Structure formats: C-alpha cells, structure tokens
C-alpha cells in the first residue's frame, strides 16, 4: 500500500483551479519528485497535504488514514457544536473526526514534516532552539511541568536537546549550534530547515525546492543528504526546479501543468514524454 495517496485532489481559489483532479501515490521508501512550470500547483499540493489548505474536492490518505477532505462546507454548521467531540460516546467522536479537517500540527504528529519554499526558520532563535521546536510534538510537558519541573520534565528536556543535537549533527551544523538562525549562510539555513523537519520524526519528508538558491557544491551535498535521509527509512517527496537534482535522485517523477497531472514515471520516461517536453522542457535544451 502506498504511504501517501492523493485521490482526485482539486483546489480552487475563487474561480481559479490551482490543482485539478490530481491523483498519484507516494510509495514507502522512495524519493518522488514533483515538477512543473511555475504556478503548476506544486506548492498548493504541499499545502493541501500538510493541512494548510483544505481541498475543494478529493481526498488524501496517509498510511491508510484520511488526512484531508473537503470541509463539507461546514465550518459555520459545525462550529456551534464543537463540544460534541468531548461527549463520552465513541460513535459521536468518530463522526466528529470524519466531519472536521485535520489541522497542520495534527498532520505533523501523524508523521509528515515539511520545509518551505521561502525559508521559514525561527530567525531570532538559535540553531539548537529551532531544531528543538521539531521535537515539540513528541513531548508532553505543559504549564505545570514547566513551573514545577518534575523528574519526567527534566528527562524530557534532556531528550529534546539530545534529539535536536542528533539531527544537527546529521545535517552537519554542529559548528553553528548556538548561532542565531538568521546569521547562518543561506545554504545552511536550508539545511537547518531540513534538520528541524527531521527532528519531528517524520515518515514522509516534504521538501519544497530544497536546492533553490544553492550553489553547485551545496547542491551536490544536498543530493547526498537527501539520499541519506531516504536510506534511513524516511520517504521523501520533493518539488524542485533544478533538473540535475530531480533527475539525479528521484526514483519517480510526477509532472504537473496548469494544475493537472500530465505525466508520471521514472526520470527517463518523463524526459521522453512528449507532453512533458511540450509543456515544460520544450523551450530549452535538455
């Protein structure tokens, strides 16, 4: 079974269809590339998967569980009865879970972590603190834990730091541990964002143009890192414009144009596909 399934996914903004009945699967343990010209709807798909937008039509399944569906036009309708989720009746709760759409943090908890196209680090926090934020949803200490600091909270804090340091080391950022995120060079900021996402312990890592703005050497390093991530058992879904990266590391590629899927297959198949060449690669030499 596929890890992530998109079924007839459609997203409209007003009259504009940004994503148009897109269906594809992401299999466990692969690196899947999502490519297409600017504005083809790639980032919208990412935002749909991570719960930032709700789809207009279609569904997304992650590990067999439905994580996104149209909100039944129902916000106005269900908001006054939000309290039913607390009723001690299982069927009611299940109905509720069917009705409401998952919020982004819940999707992260299920095992999907992402990076952003425009880097969105916590700029004035240190590298360590940034990565610690990724561990947040795996720990539980709240208000009382923070004030009274019982043993479990201290253990948890130690766990958060060690886990964060592990991913900082993995991404080769040890030297910058206590540096502020905004002071890092651009390439390292990209790496830090990946480290932060990895600290969330995802099964699926979603990278939105990870190589954008990187130089040649940094891009090669990045490709290496992405392979390592995959080898450690994390599935990778990435948007990328740099064809060297896409063709170099992706096992399969999905091509979008004007919100529609126009091709899917191995890099070789996609490169030979006439529709892809026409829509995307035709203007320039490959």
């Amino acid at each position, binding site marked *: 079974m596929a890890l992530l399934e998109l079924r007839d996914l459609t997203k409209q*903004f007003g009259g504009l269809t940004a994503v148009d009945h897109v269906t594809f699967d992401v299999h466990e343990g692969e690196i899947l590339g999502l490519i297409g010209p600017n504005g083809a709807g790639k980032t919208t798909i990412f935002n749909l998967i991570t719960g930032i937008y709700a789809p207009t039509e279609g569904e997304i399944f992650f590990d067999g569980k439905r994580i996104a569906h149209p909100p039944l036009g129902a916000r106005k309708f269900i908001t006054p009865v939000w309290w039913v989720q607390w009723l001690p009746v299982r069927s009611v709760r299940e109905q509720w879970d069917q009705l409401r759409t998952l919020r982004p*943090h819940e999707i*992260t908890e299920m095992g999907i*972590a992402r990076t*952003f196209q425009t880097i969105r680090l*916590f700029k004035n926090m240190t590298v360590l603190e940034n990565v*610690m934020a990724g561990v947040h949803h795996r720990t539980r200490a709240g208000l009382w834990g923070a004030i009274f600091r019982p043993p479990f909270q201290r253990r948890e804090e130690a766990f958060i730091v060690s886990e964060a340091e592990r991913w900082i080391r993995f991404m080769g950022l040890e030297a910058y541990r206590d540096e502020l995120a905004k002071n890092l060079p651009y390439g390292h900021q990209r790496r830090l964002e990946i480290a932060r996402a990895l600290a969330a312990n995802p099964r699926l890592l979603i990278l939105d143009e990870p190589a954008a703005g990187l130089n040649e050497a940094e891009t090669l390093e990045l490709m290496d890192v992405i392979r390592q991530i995959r080898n450690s058992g994390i599935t990778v879904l990435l948007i990328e414009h*740099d064809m060297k990266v896409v063709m170099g590391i992706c096992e399969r590629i999905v091509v979008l144009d004007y919100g529609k899927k126009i091709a899917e297959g191995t890099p070789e198949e996609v490169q030979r596909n006439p529709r892809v060449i026409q829509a995307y690669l035709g203007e*320039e030499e490959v």
Partner: protein
Amino acid sequence: MKSLQARLGRIPPLWWQVGLLALAVLLPLPMSDYYRSVLWRTALYAILGLSLNIIVGYAGLFQLGHAAFYALGAYTSALLNLYLDVPLILTWPASVLVAAFFGYLISRPIIHLRGDYLCVVTIAFGEVVRLALVNNIFGITGGANGLSGIDRPVLFGLVLRTPLQHYYLVLFFLVLTLFAVRRLENSRLGRAWVCIREDETAAEAMGIDTVRAKLLAFVVGSAWAGLAGALYVARVPVVSPDLARFIESVVMFCIVVLGGTGSIPGVFVGTLGMVTLPELLRFLQTWRDAWMGVAMVVMMIARPEGLWPSRRVRMEIRGEEEEEAGFPTGVEEDPPDPSSDNSGEPDFSGEVYQLYDEETYLITLLEEGPRGLPSEGDPSGKDAV
C-alpha cells in the same frame, strides 16, 4: 561605552537574586507610609506587568483589556467576602479561577485572529466588563460606587493592616510570579510561544498546537491578573468599576512595551516608568501626564525595543539595521561571524523568493493571466533545465 545592561550582566546571577531580594525587603523600612504605599503599588503592577508579558511578550498576542481580568479578580474576592463571608485569603484561589475562566471564554472564539483584530476584541471585552459593573449587573456589584466594607485579610491570626504588611504580601507573590515566569521562559511551552511569535505557520507545521499554546498563554496571563486584583482588594477594601478602565489596560500594556516586550527586567523598568515615577511626580500635577506622553513618544522613536529589551525582541525590531548601520544600542555585540559573510553570492533571502509565494503568484495570475510571472531573467535561475 558599555551600557548598564551589559555591565550588570557580569555579576553572577545568584548574587543578583539575593541582592535584589534583600533590597526589596529592606527598602521600605526607613520609609514613611506614603512611600511604602508607592512601593506596594509598584510591586502590584509588576505582577500585572509580568502576567501581561506572558500574553503580549511571549505569545505575541495583543491584549488591551487586561484590566478587565484585574477587575474580575478584585470583584470576585470582594463579592465572596461580602455575600458569603468567605475569609479574604480563601477568595484568592477563586479570583484566579474566575479570571482564568473568563480568559478562556473570551479568547477561545477569537484566538485565531491576528494582531490588531485581537486587540480590538480585547478592548471591547474590557469595556463590556466595566459597563457591566457600572450597571450593577445581577444587582450585586454596587454600580458605579462599587463595593465597600470588605474585610481585612487575616494571615495566621495576624490582621494585615499597615502598608508595610501589604507590601510584603504582594512582594511574596511577586517573587512567586518571577519564579514561575522565569521557569516558563525556559521550557517547552515557553519555546513554543516564542516560535509562534516568530512564525506561526512554521510553528504549526512543526507540530505545535498553536491554538492550544496561545490559549494557555491567555488563560495563564488572565488568571494571574485576577490574583493581582484580589491582592488589591486585600489592601484597599473598596472596589469600583474604575479598576477596569481602559486607561488601566493601557498602563499595563505600556509597562510591557516600555520596558521591552518579552523581557522580565523590562517589566520592572516599565513599572517604574509607568507607575512609580508618575506617583512620585504628583507635584507636577496636570503637567505630569503631558510629560509622560512626550516621553513615551520620544522613547518609541529612539528606542522602540524598550528600555531593557530581551535579546530576541531587540533583534526582531532592530533587525539587520543594527548590524549594518551600527546603531548604538550600547550593548556589546558579538564579533561578526565570518561564515555569515556570503557577499559573493546573490542574496536570495528577500523579495526574490517572495515572488514565488503562492498568494503573490495567484494575484499575479489573476491580474495578468497565466504565466504572468517573470520567468525570463529570473534572478534565481530556477528554471534552468
């Protein structure tokens, strides 16, 4: 010249804490009752400032109705004492709970609002509370005159009457608040608040339940303002709707902003500036408020990050400007990191990438039709195939 802030930072923290506590305990002893009352007021507003700092400073929620929770705490304490004869000390937990409950009630439906919208709703809530009290809601709040004849608090058989006793009472709770707030700051929850303030979308994508965290900040801050209200009633056995006046909320907000949003020492500096100083300058009479206004305008221009800002907020406000223009903040700066010098490479951190933002793109698309984006001469070279 090194600033006071930098020089003070060298003294080990333990000495600081012991020294400041000793000062706070000994300071009122040689004073007259008037100055002891001023100190009491200062400590009380420091508690209010610290509680509001959780909401405004850490979680970054604009709350301009904080006095409403202060008044709710005060009235809860007074009503329980007057109508049910509950000893004043036992009403304090109730004040905390009532303020927390209203904090939850008011913030739950509006917590997803951002910045100014949230601000407007909290102002409205503050006015609702004040008007409800003025209009003698349920016939128990005594209308515009408020309530009087409240008992004095009795602590271990000792009736607290003198300003000095009350000062120590408030000081005790102030120390308690400080302890809690400092621990909150360096905790999983505190970090989550800062993440939300820095970038809410990213925080949510990292698995932080932003709604829950923001609610917690709001509820905790409100609850603690309720306690401050109860402490006010303990000293001044008369409550009136004036407690919930808008200007009170503004003063509390200014305490937080004047000293430096999100900074604990800043709250104390702010309290001195907004509460203690005006009190001591009473002889200036009506000129006082005018000068206060001028001083605040000047300060917001010259030092928008506050008088004693937290490291992080200073950077948020000053940003790169500080590094490039060498703006004299007076604080020792770390030597520039050689690795951050990427002058040889194009800078992609700014507008260039904003062009590819989803919304921006859609707007462009709607205005100019598909492929409206500049793909030729694309500075990032992203389309190079």
